[in-house]
């Protein structure tokens, strides 16, 4: 192998190593911190998606309205209550206690959903 080839191979190996080192695959082995994924509910077509969302205690759920009509997300037990969300507007709530939280859209009450916090 020529020097040029060796150099190039070395560069490729270095890049690949860099990618691997930067990947979660290796990171997971080094520390115990869980990767937090933002908990999201998409509102579209007069429905909450997913209709049932499970999150850990302490998670913040963000509802985003992608419909062309305004909606709300209001807990049936009075735990949380969004203002009206027009298209592209959001509402967030942080769940500090475990439980099952049913909610619905007060403008279109047939739209229901739940957040399971565990």
């Amino acid at each position, binding site marked *: 192998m020529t020097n040029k080839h060796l150099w190039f191979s070395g560069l490729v190996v270095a890049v690949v190593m860099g990618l691997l080192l930067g990947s979660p695959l290796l990171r997971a082995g080094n520390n115990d911190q869980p990767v937090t994924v933002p908990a999201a509910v998409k509102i579209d077509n007069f429905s909450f998606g997913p209709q049932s969302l499970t999150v850990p205690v302490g998670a913040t759920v963000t509802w985003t309205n992608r419909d062309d009509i305004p909606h709300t997300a209001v807990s049936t037990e009075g735990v949380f209550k969004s203002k009206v969300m027009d298209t592209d507007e959001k509402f967030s709530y942080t769940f500090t206690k475990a439980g099952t939280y049913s909610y*619905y859209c007060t403008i279109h009450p047939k739209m229901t959903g739940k957040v399971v916090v565990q």
Partner: protein
Amino acid sequence: MTDQKRDVIDQNLQDLNNDGIDRRGFLKCMAWAGTGLVWTMSGGVPVSRAFAKSMGSGAGKGGDFSFVQISDSHMGFNKPANPDVVATLQAAVNKVNGLPNQPDFLLHTGDISHLSRPEQFDTVDQVLKSASAKDVFFVPGEHDVLDDNGKSYLERYGKNAQGAGWYSFEHKGVHFIGLVNVLNLKAGGLGSLGGEQLEWMEKDVKNLKHSTPIVVFAHIPLWTVYPEWGWGTEDSAQALSYLKKFGSVTVLNGHIHQTMQKVEGNVTFHTAMSTAFPQPQPGKADSPGPLKVPAEQLRSLLGITDVNYVRRQHSLAIVDSTLA
């Protein structure tokens, strides 16, 4: 009555008995604008009559009058289904101003605004100022009571109302009742009138003569049009039970952005088109949201409802007409 007319009426009576009035046929008649045909309800039986003949001679005499229902102006809506709801509301007002019999007043059956914002209500009030009829009676839609449970709606339109905005008034012998069925809606439920309002309504009609024609107006339909989409009212049956003794009851609603009609005994139910955007027919789409149509077709799916009361016949003629 000619034999031909009698046949048509018999056919409609038959359909009534089969509990399936040919809705398409009925609506075709109701949607005819400019053809001069008017269907009136006289004691629950549809009777057709040439428009000019029935209205022209009677209008303004002996207590005959008309009023116009507009609905669902959704001021503030600006999505592709209709980027200019101000223009279409103005077109509706222009249509009203062009009617051969000028209405005594307007009824707005709710969703006046799109987001309950003050500037949206202001704009509607502004546009309505150009209507020939200066009196407008409102009931709220669910879009008018957002965030504050209807407080700002009430401040603006509820001066002579009770509770959440219900009221009644008399006009030339006809008793009008405005109801609110868009507050305190329960998860998974339909529209709701509530105990307090029902109690008020029972008292309100208690001492009226059975011959008094009644017109009830509310936003969400007071009959179950399509429960999957929330098109109905949980406790409307109780409200209607208070009206059993009356010979002529007309229920005018909005909310579904299309005309639909049902006759049940002495009660005629009718929903109006929107002045803002159409919605799909029940079950014909995934959801009841704004229905996008080619721009040139929009105004043929928006419109007003002209209601003529002919005192001699004790009947109300309901005529829908589109903006184009």
